[in-house]
């Protein structure tokens, strides 16, 4: 997809003025955090599990070559195939190649953010293969020709009336008098339409939450069961996964799974956790005849050894999105690319460039809530700051901002001048502010005073009052 991250401000402006989006965001802000807190309160070992999870991921990162080779060896031993892909284009071509070899006309898809990252759907469609998203949220955004606005809740930006409209427009077989006012009815409608797609698809594509080196398995986590029908019914199962998803053993995956659902939706465990290993066995009566793992780098290895390496621990739980006040204000689409919220603000610049995505790491108050809820304790604010440093060093940040900063720093580095400026400013402003105690407009900070009053200084600066007091005593 064509990124619009450079237009973040305009995107955010639109988002803030969109009453449907705001209603949807209100629901999100109150839902996920409460559920997560409740789930964690029930598991006294949660923080200890976090530490173990972090240790597992750090261990994998430090030995990533070994675990990927081991994973591949075991996939092959089970009759599957691993396709190593450097970038998005290579991954797209590889997947299309598998589809063509199988004579595939339609593919069903489980939720996969990597698939969004490589813009797979558009590519398949342009090449005569019809992709059908099967996760309800993904299906909704697909029929609306949108992209997911959230990494685990793709349609979280919508209210049910909008979903109903889209069903009405797409499912033309629906009698006009059929009410679509409840989630239940729309879910049933999607279920009926998609059941037929599951049964007729030639290939199923899923992502992976984890890849298991020990067994050559891939793991997906869903609540709907769509991923299971996607990967069980067709002739071939393609797993599309970025390479940092590998973990050593089933035990390690179990530890991380204990963190994932609780952090994501506040569930104890997702409804379906599915471990897939190779194609169907010789005497199995169902399952795909072929198992392909498309293993994607696309910028991950470039993060190794640098200040963003810890980002490779991310398990895509979306806790950082769910708790981010900026995400909660503007929703995911404002971020202008696949990944949003704090994890997107760190990851996106590394995948599409800081020139395009410079706004994202800047649009944070550094409130730190993301890091505090991240099961992998990824220092997201620190990393956003690192991006700001790179921007600053390359003079990419807005000139007015750099000038303002330079003037302020010049003063702050000169204590006598600083005291004088502070004394003068507080004195003048308090005089101008008079007895009102606040300003309704103030030059230079119009962004503030457009919507808020600026409190007036009390009077003389503290330092000048203190100096006077010291002199007296």
């Amino acid at each position, binding site marked *: 997809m064509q990124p619009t991250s450079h237009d973040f401000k305009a995107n955010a402006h639109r988002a803030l003025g969109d009453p449907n989006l705001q209603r949807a965001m209100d629901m999100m802000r109150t839902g996920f955090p409460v559920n997560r807190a409740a789930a964690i309160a029930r598991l006294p070992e949660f923080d200890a599990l976090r530490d173990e999870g972090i240790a597992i991921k750090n261990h994998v990162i430090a030995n990533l070559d070994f675990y990927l080779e081991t994973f591949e060896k075991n996939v092959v031993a089970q009759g599957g195939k691993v396709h190593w892909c450097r970038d998005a284009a290579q991954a797209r071509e590889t997947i299309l190649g598998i589809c063509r070899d199988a004579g595939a006309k339609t593919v069903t898809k489980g939720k996969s953010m990597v698939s969004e990252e490589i813009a797979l759907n558009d590519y398949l469609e342009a090449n005569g293969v019809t992709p059908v998203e099967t996760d309800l949220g993904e299906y909704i955004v697909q029929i609306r020709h949108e992209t997911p606005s959230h990494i685990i809740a793709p349609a979280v930006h919508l209210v049910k009336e909008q979903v109903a409209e889209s069903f009405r427009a797409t499912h033309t077989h629906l009698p006009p008098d059929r009410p679509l006012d409840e989630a239940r009815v729309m879910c049933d409608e999607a279920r009926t339409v998609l059941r037929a797609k599951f049964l007729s698809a030639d290939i199923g594509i899923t992502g992976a939450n984890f890849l298991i080196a020990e067994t050559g398995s891939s793991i997906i986590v869903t609540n709907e069961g769509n991923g299971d029908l996607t990967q069980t019914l067709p002739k071939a199962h393609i797993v599309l996964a970025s390479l940092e998803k590998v973990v050593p053993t089933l035990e390690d995956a179990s530890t991380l799974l204990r963190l994932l659902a609780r952090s994501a939706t506040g569930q104890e465990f997702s409804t379906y956790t599915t471990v897939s290993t190779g194609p169907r066995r010789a005497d199995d009566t169902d399952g795909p005849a072929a198992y392909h793992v498309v293993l994607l780098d696309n910028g991950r290895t470039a993060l190794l050894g640098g200040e963003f390496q810890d980002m490779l621990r991310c398990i895509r739980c979306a806790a950082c999105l769910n708790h981010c006040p900026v995400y909660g204000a503007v929703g995911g689409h404002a971020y202008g690319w696949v990944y949003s919220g704090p994890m997107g603000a760190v990851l996106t610049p590394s995948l599409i460039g800081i020139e395009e995505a410079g706004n994202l790491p800047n649009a944070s108050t550094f409130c730190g809530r993301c890091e505090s809820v991240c099961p992998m304790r990824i220092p997201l604010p620190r990393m956003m700051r690192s991006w700001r440093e790179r921007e600053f060093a390359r003079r990419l940040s807005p000139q007015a901002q750099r000038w303002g900063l330079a003037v302020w720093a010049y003063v702050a580095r000169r204590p006598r001048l600083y005291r004088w400026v502070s004394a003068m400013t507080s004195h003048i402003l308090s005089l101008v502010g008079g007895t009102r105690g606040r300003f309704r407009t103030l030059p230079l900070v119009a962004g503030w005073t457009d*919507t808020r009053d600026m409190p007036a200084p009390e009077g003389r600066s503290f330092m000048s009052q203190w100096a006077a007091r010291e002199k007296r005593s």
Partner: protein
Amino acid sequence: MADSPRVALFVTCLVDLFRPTVGFAAVKLLEEAGCRVEVPAAQTCCGQPAFNSGDRDNAKALARQVIDVFKGFDYVVVPSGSCGGMIKTHYPELFATDPIMADVANALAAKTFELVSFLTDVMKCDHIAARYDGVATYHDACSGLRELGIKDQPRRLLKGVEGLTLKEMATPEVCCGFGGTFCVKYPEISDKMVSDKVADIVATGADTLLCGDMGCLLNMAGKQSRLGKSIRVRHVAEVLAGMTDTTPPIAAPREKR
């Protein structure tokens, strides 16, 4: 008084400029807790605006200045979790790769405290005699809460204030949208956040909003004032020091002299 600790007050830019009362309240609270308080004249800013804007050189220069000005004291106390967090958690980060500076940065970090947590955790104050008539709600400023673990301390002391009832917001830990330069770089998003915050404050029915950070206070006070609410917004130190009679709340009209 020989064994009373020698404490330097780091006033912070926003207190110096906007709300000197907070500085005097801090001095009073510290002296009452048995500290000898000094206010080094050469202090300016902790450097956080530069640090958060990616300007490491200026951030380091200002950090060096602070380290230099505040050496030799037993403690450095800051009436702000944000500036306190800058010194306590980010100075060591800034100089992590510089062995000589790392030592002095760590030393300063170790003796630097946010005001209220200093009173409770270091000076072991469990009760401060003060009176304030009102129903207050307390906003947990982000840096104080998440970088310094300040949550219970101000509430504990406020519980002892005569006449004051504390009523919690639904989400006292959610950011108010100030974020330093964020509020001028992304004013619309900032406004949305502070609007939600004010709605949460109003929903408590409290007549007073307290918080330990001037930035957040200016933001929330400015918003509630623009919305025509008449919530009394104050730094927590003003209430604890019993200095609310002499100074009107933040953004509130002053009496004509």
